[in-house]
């Protein structure tokens, strides 16, 4: 009986982070649910024990059901029958297993039949499911949308929809349109209010909608006639039971082939307004996107893990020139860097998740009672760090998942180019992670302001002041030197006072911050757990070389040099 939770002790390391006691205390509001629900924890230890036991179920399903189905799902894919999606057989088997195991609505409150879990174990489940089948995680992971319903819909809508999500109904978020991709302000799908029956009706087309035929969809639509920008958009809830939406076709994709990417036609589809009018893009989509980005970071980490494991197993198994190829420097260097990138991505993933969990839980508590000034300060602090880390993590981890997938194939040599090995599917599946929910370039756009405002730097200063094991101090000193270079380079770019110049170097500056932050996080991991020592060292070596290279490039680059790069 393989188990993706037990065979990867790094997960438990991240689950048992010191901040968890705070997070769980806040989430459980003094463990009062134990009186009302027979599955609610009675104290912190009980909650953590439950998290582990549930992750054990996820780990078992991933290893025994989801991973073995991945190949057939990749081949078979979903198809459209009479305007609706029929999943590949394996997809349905996976979904049934997860539903029977009660793994839907994991972090929703218990009063809606959820389990009120911290986001950390939820994201950890997504991490494992992604390792098993990155295409499948899209369908399961869209339960994220339920968080948006919980946050912004009214109580009647919550009562109507959330228990259905917990019972296993799937979701979709319908944002993209043929002419509105990265620029969602251009959304055209029309929402019109019928004064006679008091309902909203949707008309138009959505494209590239993951799991577009899910039971419950959040739809971004133009509710204000004559408007052209984001301020005319509202969020709607569409219930498949009401009908009115058909799937015109499913895209034939390069990867994540089990996940149906739908083109949807709305014909007078009845829908409910979710939250306030005109706040669709400005407020709700931003929240939705942030949680979706965290989900993609988890997907990227799962893919990094899968790619690394495939490469490691092959390198041990494959002999050339009379010895296993893992003994050749060219190969073991690649494997070490793959593992370091994996560990770096994962530690940033869980750090970000904890930040999000802290501030979202405070936000939720603030609906029940007024927060104390200290609590409000703390909430703002975590929100700021979450906002800074979400695009950084998504950008870096998704690029690393692609790099690991590339290296995994490289280690497989010619065999990796054949369809016979999983690394080929992983390579195709990884490719989307740096594109959807905002391309890496857009993550940089979101992240660069945290470079220029000094948010990353103040986070780095806090990490710098943490307690490290004495034997790790030399690494901290290197990170301090790297920080000085980062500061200096940032200042140089800012001093040019030229927006285009900043945009041009933004990726480099964001990556520099990322290397330092992930370096510190790995050092902190290594301080708690010796097994991270190697990855910390390998990553700091790697990050330092990248950072110095970026700094060098920038220091030799004047505003005038932009001309050389501009396309005519």
């Amino acid at each position, binding site marked *: 009986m393989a188990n993706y939770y037990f065979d990867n002790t790094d997960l438990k390391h991240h689950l048992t982070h010191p901040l968890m006691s705070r997070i769980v205390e806040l989430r459980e509001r003094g463990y009062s649910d134990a009186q009302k629900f027979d*599955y609610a924890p009675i104290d912190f230890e009980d909650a953590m024990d439950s998290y582990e036991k549930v992750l054990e*179920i996820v780990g078992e399903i991933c290893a025994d059901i989801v991973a073995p189905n991945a190949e057939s799902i990749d081949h078979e894919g979903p198809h459209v029958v009479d305007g609706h999606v029929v999943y590949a057989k394996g997809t349905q088997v996976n979904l049934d297993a997860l539903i029977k195991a*009660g793994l839907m609505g*994991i972090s929703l409150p218990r009063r809606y039949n959820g389990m009120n879990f911290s986001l950390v174990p939820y994201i950890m489940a997504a991490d494992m499911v992604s390792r098993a089948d990155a295409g499948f995680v899209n369908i399961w992971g869209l339960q994220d949308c339920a968080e948006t319903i919980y946050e912004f819909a009214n109580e009647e809508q919550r009562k109507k929809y959330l228990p259905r999500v917990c019972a296993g109904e799937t979701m979709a978020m319908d944002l993209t349109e043929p002419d509105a991709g990265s620029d969602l302000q251009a959304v055209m799908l029309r929402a019109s209010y019928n004064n006679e029956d008091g309902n909203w009706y949707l008309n138009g087309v959505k494209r590239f909608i993951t799991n577009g035929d899910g039971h419950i969809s959040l739809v971004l639509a133009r509710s204000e006639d004559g408007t052209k920008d984001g301020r005319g958009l509202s969020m709607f809830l569409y219930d498949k039971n009401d009908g009115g939406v058909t799937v015109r076709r499913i895209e034939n994709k390069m990867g994540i082939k089990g996940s149906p990417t739908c083109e949807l036609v709305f014909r007078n589809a009845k829908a409910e307004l979710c939250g306030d009018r005109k706040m669709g893009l400005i407020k709700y989509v931003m929240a939705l996107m942030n949680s979706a980005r965290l989900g993609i970071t988890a997907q990227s980490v799962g893919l990094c893990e899968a790619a690394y494991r495939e490469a490691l197993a092959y390198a041990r198994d494959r002999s050339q020139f009379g010895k296993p190829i893992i003994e050749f420097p060219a190969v073991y260097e690649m494997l070490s860097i793959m593992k370091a990138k994996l560990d770096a991505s994962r530690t940033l993933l869980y750090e970000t998740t904890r930040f999000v969990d802290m501030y979202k839980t405070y936000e939720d508590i603030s609906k029940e009672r007024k927060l104390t000034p200290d609590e409000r300060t703390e909430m703002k602090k975590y929100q700021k760090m979450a906002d800074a880390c979400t695009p950084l993590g998504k950008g870096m981890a998704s690029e690393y998942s692609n790099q690991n997938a590339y290296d995994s194939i490289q280690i497989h040599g010619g065999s990796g180019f054949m369809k016979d090995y999983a690394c080929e599917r992983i390579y195709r599946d990884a490719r989307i992670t740096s594109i959807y929910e905002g391309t890496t370039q857009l993550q940089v756009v979101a992240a660069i302001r945290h470079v220029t405002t000094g948010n990353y730097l103040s986070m780095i200063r806090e990490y710098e002041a943490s307690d490290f094991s004495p034997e790790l101090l030399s690494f901290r000193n290197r990170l301090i030197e790297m920080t000085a270079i980062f500061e200096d380079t940032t200042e140089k770019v800012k001093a040019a006072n030229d927006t285009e110049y900043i945009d041009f170097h933004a990726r480099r500056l964001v990556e520099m911050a990322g290397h330092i932050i992930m370096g510190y996080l790995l050092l902190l991991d290594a301080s708690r757990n010796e097994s991270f020592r190697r990855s910390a060292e390998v990553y700091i070596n790697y990050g330092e070389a990248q950072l110095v290279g970026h700094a060098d490039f920038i220091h030799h680059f004047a505003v005038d040099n932009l001309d050389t790069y501009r396309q005519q």
Partner: protein
Amino acid sequence: MSLKIIVLAKQVPDTRNVGKDAMKADGTVNRAALPAIFNPEDLNALEQALQLKENNPGSTIHLLTMGPGRAAEIIREGLYRGADGGVLLTDRAFAGADTLATSYALACAIRKMGAYDVIICGRQAIDGDTAQVGPQVAEKLGIPQITYAEEVQTVKGGKLRVKRRLESGVEVVEGKMPLLLTVNGSADDCRPRNAKRVMKYKYAKTITEKQNANVDYTDMFDSRPYLNLVEWGVADVNADLVQVGLSGSPTKVKKIENVVFQAKENLVLSSSDLDIDHLMFELIENHTIG
């Protein structure tokens, strides 16, 4: 109609992943070296029970397992997947039981458990591989049995219609309840543990486990009575001491040999008296028996 279902399940050493130290020098199974698991075909049996329960609202499932104290895990695993309760049959006097003594003890416990409609068990356990316990329990209780069951198709008019998986194909038969099914490994895999049920039942313990636990959960067990697992000994099920355990077991292990199969040998027998007579003669002749 609602059904009262009893599932017979056994905790077994995981013989599917046998390492070097799986057998002791004296030829007996080194149980300490092998993880204890839910017998795989008993999981198939549990799944059939759970499906019956889903399709027949109001039905209940109780597990019955015989073994040492740690076999209480089997009851918990059943609860995690949807069973309503269970009984651990445990007593030093039960130790060393062969299939005859085991089926006697189980039958005594089933009588004590009260009325039932269906008893479901796995075809055989992966440690002994006899496939005898289920049929013997049915005989002792005087109820019909359907072996090699793969799927319960219908429940109608007090009868179960069951698809059997046989070597040469499938057979659909009907049996009148109460009856016993032994379920084949080709039946549906058991569903995973359910998250909420795991959280609800994870502290469930037998009285012996509670006594051995170093944490005091007295209050919890008082306020959540479903956490108390039933544990019965010989006296609780009114069993005859002579018929249980070693003393009730005519099977004596004379010798154990390591056998490496040279070729895939296969012999298909019909259930005719003639074929069985021939087999018996052959076994007596080559001293497998006697």
